[in-house]
């Protein structure tokens, strides 16, 4: 999520679209805006739009969502209404474009001010530069003072929490820094064989493990390679001894060809090199199984799943049903991922004044909606506002979000839909979604994205 320019008013979004289409692309009407703002690569990467690419992307990032002509008409009408509503304001100045509300004209654009008008120039310049990421403004409540929440939104009774018995809270995990330039990612066949051999040796050390026999999938008993690598060489494919991952977006092959094995070995190899990897798989069950497989080889992982109460309930219930099939209806049993799908909120242990017949909302805990008054310089309490729960650095229910933020968790596994989930406000200083974070995260360690062939 990006911070919009200071002068941006959502109701005047049609003016900002007009600024891009008129001043950058030289167009005289807004019709076609829905295609320009669709985000399709076939459009955004068109050479004729080179000069407007950043501005169009910025418009999408600040939430200008025009998916159809109806949306466009709504935006134009809303801008016109806003102008009429604010025309009498003391600080009112007329927006730079007059946009026809008649669809028959294609929402024709007419300039009200000269092109060198400072306001019009400022609009243009702000759209042509990189918009800053929106900062996470919400702060955690002070755990040395009591705070409260309402289990039923604003109407329920207050529940007072007292966490003063906690002498100090654990610190937040260190978040991976933003990506810097990296070298191409190249894996040699020899490296793949070496990691396969290492994993087989690790399996052999534990007689209770079912051996996965990775090496034999790469090399026959006689030592002959099971598969060969061919790379483009001019207009031909030539034998190669290494795999270059840069730019690879598809892997196809018959069932049993070894796609998943290859991906698994690559992930372990890259993680052991300290690289960061995101694995996108078709289901939470698949993600949990992969998490267990990687944990078996001591690869530090994090589970990229929806953190909403409904998503948590759905995932935890399905996991509980799976654990119940292990033995004893799940009693005394656990499975990989259970520690990341905790269902009980630690704050429940610190409720000091529960209202009558109060039941703690473990399913919808007040992680981001506790209320506490600010503290003035003179020590008196000021205005009350919403705060983040201060126990997030220790609470078991937040373990998954904590691990996702932790720079040490090198492999993130989840469903592609889960990448469209906001980062936890508890552990990040900027507001963004996971897919943005994936694109940005790296450090000297890089962040390749590998999607399973079944995803």
């Amino acid at each position, binding site marked *: 999520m990006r911070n919009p320019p200071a002068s941006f008013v959502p109701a005047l979004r049609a003016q900002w679209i007009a600024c891009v289409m008129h001043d950058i692309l030289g167009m005289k009407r807004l019709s076609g805006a829905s295609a320009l703002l669709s985000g399709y690569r076939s459009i955004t990467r068109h050479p004729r739009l080179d000069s407007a690419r950043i501005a169009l992307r910025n418009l999408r990032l600040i939430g200008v969502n025009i998916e159809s002509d109806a949306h466009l008409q709504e935006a134009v009408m809303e801008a016109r209404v806003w102008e009429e509503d604010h025309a009498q304001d003391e600080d009112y100045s007329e927006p730079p474009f007059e946009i026809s509300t008649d669809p028959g004209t294609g929402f024709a654009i007419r300039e009200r001010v000269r092109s060198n008008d400072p306001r019009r120039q400022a609009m243009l310049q702000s759209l042509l530069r990189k918009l800053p990421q929106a900062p996470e403004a919400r702060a955690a409540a002070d755990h040395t003072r009591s705070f409260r929440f309402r289990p039923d939104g604003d109407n329920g009774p207050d529940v007072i929490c007292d966490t003063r018995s*906690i002498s100090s809270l654990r610190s937040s995990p260190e978040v991976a820094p933003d990506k810097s330039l990296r070298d191409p990612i190249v894996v040699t066949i020899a490296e793949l064989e070496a990691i396969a051999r290492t994993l087989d040796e690790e399996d052999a050390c534990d*007689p209770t493990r079912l051996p996965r026999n990775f090496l034999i999938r790469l090399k026959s008993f006689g030592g002959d390679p099971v598969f060969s690598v061919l790379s483009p060489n001019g207009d031909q494919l030539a034998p190669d001894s290494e795999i270059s991952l840069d730019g690879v977006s598809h892997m196809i092959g018959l069932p049993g060809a070894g796609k998943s094995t290859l991906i698994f070995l690559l992930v372990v190899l890259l993680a052991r090199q300290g690289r960061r990897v995101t694995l996108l798989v078709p289901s939470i069950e698949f993600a949990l199984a992969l998490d267990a497989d990687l944990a078996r080889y001591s690869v530090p992982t994090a589970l990229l799943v929806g953190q909403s109460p409904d998503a948590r309930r759905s995932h935890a*219930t399905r996991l509980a049903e799976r654990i119940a099939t292990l033995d*004893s209806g799940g009693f*005394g*049993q656990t499975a990989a991922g259970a520690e990341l799908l*905790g269902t*009980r909120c630690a704050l429940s242990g610190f409720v000091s004044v529960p209202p009558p017949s109060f039941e*703690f909302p473990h399913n919808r805990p007040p992680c981001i909606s506790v209320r506490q008054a600010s503290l003035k310089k003179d020590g008196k309490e000021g205005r009350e506002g919403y705060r983040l729960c201060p126990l997030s650095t220790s609470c078991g229910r937040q373990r998954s979000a904590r691990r996702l933020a932790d720079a040490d968790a090198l492999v993130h596994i989840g469903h592609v839909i889960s990448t469209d989930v906001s980062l936890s406000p508890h552990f990040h200083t900027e507001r963004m979604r996971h897919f943005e974070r994936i694109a940005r995260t790296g450090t000297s360690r890089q962040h390749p994205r590998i999607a399973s062939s079944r995803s």
Partner: protein
Amino acid sequence: MVTTQADSEDEVEVALRMLSRGFLELHLGIRAGEIVDPFALPESMGVGMQMLSRLCLTSEVNDIGDSVHCLSDLARRLPVGDWGVPALAAPFRFAEVKLLSPEPVAPTEECRALAARGQSDNAFEDIHHRQLREIVQRVRTDRRLQIYSIIRERIVRKPVYERRELSDFLEDNGVVVADEVLRRWSTEIPLGALRRDGSFNLCGNCGGLLYPHRDRAAFPHGRCRIGPCLEEVPSSRSGATIADASGWRIFADDILAYWVGPGLSEIRLHDELRAAGVDVVLYPRDDAADVGRSHELGVDVKSYSCPRLLGETLSERLGGLATFDRRYVAIPNAMVDRRPHYLDDLRLAYRGTMPVTFGKVSDVARLVIG
């Protein structure tokens, strides 16, 4: 890591008691066919978990009160002192308590003792014990007083049985009425115990099932899943191979956990005393003791990991043992050998008014034989 004033021993003990009650109630649900549903936990389990979370956070360690699955797995594997919560670790007096037995998974006797603290005597009475006593009440023969012992001994000695053979046994002893209940308490041989040809192995030590194991070098005939048996014989040996599983049944996990596992030491003691000419029976007078003779001699075999909890529990209620003139509490040899000063700590913790002799199973046998 810090321990604050809030972690006073009382608060810690209350948390442990609530967790114990929670596990017992959760297990009751499992026995009724439910599964562990993290969104439908017994209230005591929820309260116990929230108190545990509080202990974790005030001690600045990882919260382990958020997932019932992880917590019950932890309770199955480790004594509470090793859970990573400073307030539960030594010098907390119940740090050695194990709440769940590892195999088969069920609340331990210690868990029941903790859960029952501050409750009425029969608040957490073993449901099987009660059902068996009800059967005994319905029997109208001269041997009525022996029926309880006969059935219980039979279960401990043969946890896997063939239906017709058991029916014959019950008929011979005049307790056909128990046939239906024993069938309810047991299940067919689980598929996991069967070998490819449909046969299965019986444990040479306890008579339970041997499950095929991945580590064939250590468990060539399979592995027994009754914890105390594995402690006695770490590499299970086959006692018999049954070619066809049809008609065979095994008692449910909780019977294996509550009666068969702990019963191994009781049977050893009983057999040793009988072999030495001491006239004792198993579970005399409706389970007033584990091994005994009329009102004269009673021996209870206790498998508590924590001697302090055992001492305190016996101080509060000696149970049926109090009705005997000579009272012994015997601890399995392996347990005493593994934990130094077990008996010293037990004697120190026992503050009951009735004199009781504590010792290893082998020592108690020697004392009784004289």
